[in-house]
């Protein structure tokens, strides 16, 4: 199993950071306490635009607006992408496609066909999910890097097709997009006040988190993780891997679509220029930066990715470069992300007697494998080939001649 990537000198450190001890403290709290803290936390999030935060607020851009976009939208996208990348272990480099589909669904249905916004939202989500399933059906049997490049291509295909299709505005996009009807004191049609959108978006995020939590703690979530850890073993344990991969793709896509819908209504514009490849990469960076697989982690990661460049507008031209450097440094010193998945936290246990093979089958797998699926690479596990753990094991298959 040893690929060169990890073969050389391994000095695995338990990620005994502050966050993991915090996590420990958190899980140690009684249930009621956790619920109380959670509720207060969410309430504080709702109050974010109302509390004066001084230096934390963005300086050159309006804080309430930034809270909605990019921060909230990025959070939503990262939650969606995390299902695909962090949970199920499929590398998706074209997640922006679903963002675009949500936005365009809103623009076309709401803008061109005057649908009610509350009808547009679920339709946008459904369309994005359908697109995820349509993309997934032929491509999900591809693994790793191949899936990555195909999804990247899909993202570009969506953007370019939108750009080339005159009936949806071509490069001009569609700018006549409805906003949600006013509810009580929430005036969505007041363009000067982005707080209603923030609150609506936050409500959606809370709902999504609630749903995703439930999924993660169910048969579905276990199937996803099992697929991430060892797809073949999962299938042999009775997990219909294709179905669940498709579900992961569709759920992720649906959340992406919701983000797109919300974004387009607030910006009142859906144009192809928004849906660049770079956004997919930023969403992925958010997932990894926060701690791939961990819901809280990716939310924090996304918030950072969205917030920091806005906060440091003063750096102007340098901020993308600093962001790049930060990514490299982060991956060197804290590759597991800001708030790693609970499982990564070091566990204390009694010493054991390890036969040599224990490391062969587990630890080196974890070290050498792409977190995204253990066997990664061309032709490693196809049905006509033996079940080799190492794609490059010399006698792995008899067809080298």
């Amino acid at each position, binding site marked *: 199993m040893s690929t060169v990537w990890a073969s050389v000198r391994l000095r695995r450190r338990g990620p005994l950071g502050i966050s993991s001890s915090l996590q420990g403290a958190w899980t140690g709290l009684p249930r009621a306490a956790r619920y109380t803290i959670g509720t207060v936390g969410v309430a504080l999030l709702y109050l974010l635009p109302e509390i004066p935060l001084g230096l934390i607020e*963005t300086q*050159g*851009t*309006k804080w*309430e*607006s*930034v809270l909605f*976009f990019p921060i909230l939208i990025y959070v939503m996208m990262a939650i969606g992408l995390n299902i695909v990348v962090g949970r199920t272990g499929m590398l998706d480099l074209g997640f922006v496609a679903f963002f675009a589909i949500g936005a365009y669904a809103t623009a076309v249905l709401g803008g061109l066909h005057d649908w009610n916004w509350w009808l547009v939202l679920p339709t946008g989500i459904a369309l994005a999910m359908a697109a995820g399933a349509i993309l997934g059906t032929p491509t999900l049997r591809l693994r790793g890097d191949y899936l990555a490049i195909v999804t990247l291509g899909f993202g570009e295909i969506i953007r370019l097709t939108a*750009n*080339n299709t005159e009936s949806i505005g*071509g*490069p*001009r*996009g569609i*700018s006549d997009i409805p906003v949600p009807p006013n509810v009580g004191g929430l005036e969505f049609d*007041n*363009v*000067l006040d*982005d707080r209603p959108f923030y609150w609506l978006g936050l409500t959606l995020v809370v709902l999504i988190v609630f749903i995703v939590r439930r999924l993660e703690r169910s048969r579905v979530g276990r199937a996803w993780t099992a697929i991430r850890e060892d797809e073949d073993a999962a299938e042999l344990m009775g997990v219909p891997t294709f179905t669940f991969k498709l579900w992961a793709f569709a759920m992720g896509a649906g959340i992406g679509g919701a983000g797109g819908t919300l974004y387009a209504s*607030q*910006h*009142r*514009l859906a*144009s192809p*220029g*928004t849906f660049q490849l770079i956004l997919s990469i930023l969403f992925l960076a958010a997932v990894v930066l926060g701690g791939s697989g961990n819901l809280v982690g990716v939310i924090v990661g996304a918030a950072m990715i969205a917030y920091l460049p*806005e906060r440091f*507008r003063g750096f*102007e*031209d340098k901020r993308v470069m600093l962001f790049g450097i930060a990514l490299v440094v982060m991956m060197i010193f804290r590759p597991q992300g800001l708030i790693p998945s609970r499982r990564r936290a070091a566990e204390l246990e009694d010493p054991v007697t390890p036969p040599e093979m224990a490391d062969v089958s587990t630890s080196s797998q974890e070290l050498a494998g792409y977190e995204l699926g253990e066997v990664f690479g061309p032709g490693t596990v196809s049905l006509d080939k033996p079940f080799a753990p190492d794609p490059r094991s010399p006698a792995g298959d008899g067809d080298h001649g």
Partner: protein
Amino acid sequence: MKKWFRLLVPIAAVALLAAACGDDDDDVATTDETAAPAAAGVVCADPLTIAFFGAQTGDAANLGLNESRGAELAINEFNAANPACQIGYKAFDSQGNPDNAPALAQQAVDEAAIVAIVGPAFSGESRTANPIFEAAGLPIVTPSASAPDLSTLGWTIFHRLIANDDSQGPAIAAHIAGELAAAKVAVIDDNSEYGLSLAEIVAGELEAAGVEVTVTDHVDPASQDFSATVTKVKDAGVDVVMYGGYYAEAGRLRKQLVDGGVTAGFISGDGSLDPGFIEAAGAEAAEGAILTAAAFFSPDGYTGGADFGAKFLADSGSAPGLYSAEGYDGANLILAAITAGNTTREAINTFLSTASFQGITKTFKFLPNGELDGPAAIYATVVEGGVLVGAGQIGG
């Protein structure tokens, strides 16, 4: 970048020369309605700020800086002349990106001192920012957002300092059909909002004028290689190639067309009107290309702009570019409103909508929809001997 300067030096020199020969009247605002800033100066009680909205960094920074430096120059001159009324200046750097624009616009709206905006520079960002300005009643004067439909969206705060693409497109088409007497034309664009719109208008006008548009193609500006388009153009054997898009791609396309053996003429709109076009195409290939705009590329083309180049260079350290003079005029227009005693957004907007103002580029009087009243002037610039040379008005 350095070559950029080198090319601009002769232009700047010409401008300086013109300034030296011109009259000594420094006043810029001289109309019947508004008096020039008096020597005593304007007095204003509240702190007032004029903001620029557009790209200051990023790929689209060139155009934004051209304009913002013009606006800054106007404000600096005003402040020097009016010690009792110091106007602030602030730039909102949208990078030309419609996605960034709303949060910036909200911020601008929130700052009470900001009474008017010069910008937004592009049509795309206008679509996401202007609704916010409209809602806040914050008046804008845009020196360069040229999409025709912007004036149809019911914005009362919208004022456009140039003729839109509905004027530029027909002028280009008329020029192709008339002056250039082309029988077959290739209309190519960069598949951007601006480029495609302009190209479509031109193609429509050409068809109406009975000129055959044998090739329409959309290139990807991110792609370096346009050879498939070159082959298509070669195949059709056109007389003129019209390109809607920006200067870097226009230059690259022109170069690859010439290298591929295409001898047809080349004409493009204001997006291509930049010395960068000549750089990208190479002086040889660029020769003879016609670049149009609803503005002069160099301010000495304007009657009132004789010494503008020199002042601009002295103030900002760089030579003026396309729409620098419009940026300057835009700011002066707002300053004229302040001079006339209008210090609220509403009052300034009313002033802008009703007053007539003589800038260095033209006389500004706006229709209710924010477009200029009166015939729109479209000017051509031709590449001659490796430099941009004004070739007079071609339409309007």
